[in-house]
């Protein structure tokens, strides 16, 4: 199929990947105080790993090809939970300590801003692709 918008594959893949990243950050922030997950353990902070996809259509072309991106995996952050002394908490252990997930709210917010900026940058690419395509379509018309 003809690609009407140049580079739209890369841009669309990046928008999806960044949105997944924002979802994961939202999940981390939402579970900042979760002391008991489905497995009975405190919530583990998750993080995304990005990876390029080989562009099959252009792989035969010599030289570099545009590369879309995808979330390769969402992996748990191995940081151990932090222990807070709160003997009245239902999830407190024998010594009165509660294991909270070690999530730094500031770090998550910075990640969130970085993700939304990357999302905006890709939207700017899409806007430019659109105006380039419209301009190409107007070749031969009187302005």
């Amino acid at each position: 199929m003809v690609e009407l918008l140049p580079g739209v594959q890369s841009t669309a893949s990046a928008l999806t990947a960044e949105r997944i990243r924002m979802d994961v950050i939202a999940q981390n922030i939402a579970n900042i105080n979760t002391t008991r997950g489905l497995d009975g353990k405190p919530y583990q902070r998750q993080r995304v790993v990005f990876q390029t996809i080989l562009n099959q259509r252009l792989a035969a072309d010599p030289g570099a090809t545009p590369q879309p991106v995808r979330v390769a995996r969402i992996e748990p952050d191995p940081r151990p939970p932090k222990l807070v002394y709160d003997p009245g908490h239902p999830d407190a252990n024998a010594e009165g300590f509660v294991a909270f997930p070690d999530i730094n709210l500031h770090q998550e917010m910075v990640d969130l801003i970085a993700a939304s900026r990357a999302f905006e940058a890709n939207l700017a690419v899409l806007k430019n692709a659109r105006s380039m395509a419209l301009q190409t379509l107007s070749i031969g018309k009187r302005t």
Partner: protein
Amino acid sequence: MISALFNQTTYVAAKKMLDATVLRHQAIASNLANLETPGYRRIDLAPSFQAHLQQALAAGDTHRLARLQPRLQVDPAATLGTRDGNTVSLESELTQLQENLIAHALETQLISSTLLRLRLAITGRPF
């Protein structure tokens, strides 16, 4: 021959530059998509295209111009900005994106004006 109408050096060059601009946009789209992919090396138009284009234009060689094929390559001049091996810089990519948009507008207008001038010469009417 009717093809002689579309064989002017500048017209063929403008078409090739338009191809290159669209390819460059794909490269920038790919670079911005992989802004945070570890180990990604930024890609750009191969500099040999610019050199060949200038040579062919200087020689007025339309056939050579028509055979030119813009290609992408990994940018060897890009420096590592972060420790994860990624060489993309958000600001420079966004600047180049805008430059590329203006270059595209210039090239489409060049092609349009060539076609409109041809039409004027044929019909005698200015549209």
